[in-house]
């Protein structure tokens, strides 16, 4: 049942200790900063977080990591010029890292939402990121078996939602939002605007409301 929630704090109450949490965004575009801040305030811990990166600067996901609330990161690009909190935890052996090529990360998330049990992909074949994984030669090409990434919760950001939970995004802020919305058991969306049902052109809906559980409007 779709819920419209007044505050980000109430919205993230669904995140329990030990949850796997997908967080949308690529760089700052599409990052649900307000929901992440609320998650930080909530105290939920022992989290597995799925995001393209592993936090930047002194905000959002970086602070969750700094506070020791993230047990494991599943991401493609943890090391950046300003990923100092992740770097410190990783070097101290206090955080687990599952490094996934970005396209495999996206497709594994998509597969979870689509009910796919796994897939063979050429990406990563013959590299250290395929070590220990099943491989096959398909159509003359080496391919690696990859499994879906499911989550308990997705925290994403969209531009607008209507009364049915249908979502539209804005430019490259779309990135992981639609696939994470589908992959999680419980999807929480922060939007800039809630419009009346019928106000979004059905032809232009990007994420159908069936994937959405909670919507919170942020300023």
């Amino acid at each position, binding site marked *: 049942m779709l819920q419209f929630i007044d505050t980000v704090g109430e919205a993230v109450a669904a995140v329990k200790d030990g949850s796997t949490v997908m967080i949308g965004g690529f760089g700052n575009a599409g990052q649900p900063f307000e929901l992440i801040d609320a998650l930080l305030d909530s105290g939920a811990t022992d989290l597995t977080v799925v995001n393209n990166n592993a936090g930047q600067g002194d905000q959002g996901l970086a602070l969750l990591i700094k506070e020791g609330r993230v047990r494991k990161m599943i991401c493609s690009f943890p090391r950046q010029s300003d990923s100092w909190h992740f770097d410190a935890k990783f070097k101290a052996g206090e955080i687990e890292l599952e490094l996934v090529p*970005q*396209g495999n990360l996206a497709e594994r998330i*998509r597969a979870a939402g689509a009910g796919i049990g796994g897939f063979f992909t050429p990406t990563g074949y013959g*590299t*250290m990121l395929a070590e220990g994984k099943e491989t096959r030669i398909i159509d003359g090409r080496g391919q690696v078996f990859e499994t879906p990434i499911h989550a308990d919760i997705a925290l994403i950001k969209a531009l607008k939602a209507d009364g049915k939970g249908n979502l539209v995004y804005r430019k490259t802020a779309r990135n992981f939002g639609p*696939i994470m919305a589908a992959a999680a058991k419980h999807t929480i969306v922060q939007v800039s605007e809630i419009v009346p049902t019928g106000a979004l052109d059905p032809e232009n809906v990007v994420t159908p409301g069936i994937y959405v559980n909670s919507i919170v409007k942020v300023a």
Partner: protein
Amino acid sequence: MSIQTSATPLGRNDLAALVARDIAPGSFVNLGIGQPTLVSNYLTEEQNITLHTENGMLGMGPEAKGDEIDDDLINAGKIPVTELPGASYFHHADSFAIMRGGHLDICVLGAFQVSATGDLANWHTGAPGAIPAVGGAMDLATGAKDVFVMMTLLTRDGASKLVETCSYPLTGVGCVTRVYTDKAVFLIGPDGVQVRETFGLTFEELQALVPFPLVPFEEKAAGAVVGV
């Protein structure tokens, strides 16, 4: 030997201009972070190239300046960019399906090393304690029809980055088709590594720098070369 085309090594911008000239009109292209991004400065309107960025866009325009800067419109390097008429947006799984599905004509990447058989190493030095980060490098290397590498031929210590076998961890196997360096352009194919042109040195001088046998470019092989 008549393959030498320039009396001096090429600078980064000259090299970017050369890569840009070699991209066939109408191509769909992904330019990697760093030096490859310079190529966009030399693409002409007549070439009608469509740029892809893996964070979900086709039809990417130049870097945004001043009022154009929009936090929701960035490239894979997280730099604010602009959109051109006819641009489209899509989610991450679709963006990498565009890559993996073989729909991109060319991607241009940087490299630590390229092997004689086109293996690419550009994501991890493998140094103890180094935090690995792969991003979209493996997907790009595997997915595009042609993978062009831009790099200096030699490391700071004078070692060739074009090697018989990569010593750094691989990004992709047998994926690189061309290597553009400050000293020469190499075409990698089933017949070995051909030297298309050299900059500021002769073929023999170039051969002395690279640790496996090179083949001078022959016109009869030109038909087998993709993209030109």
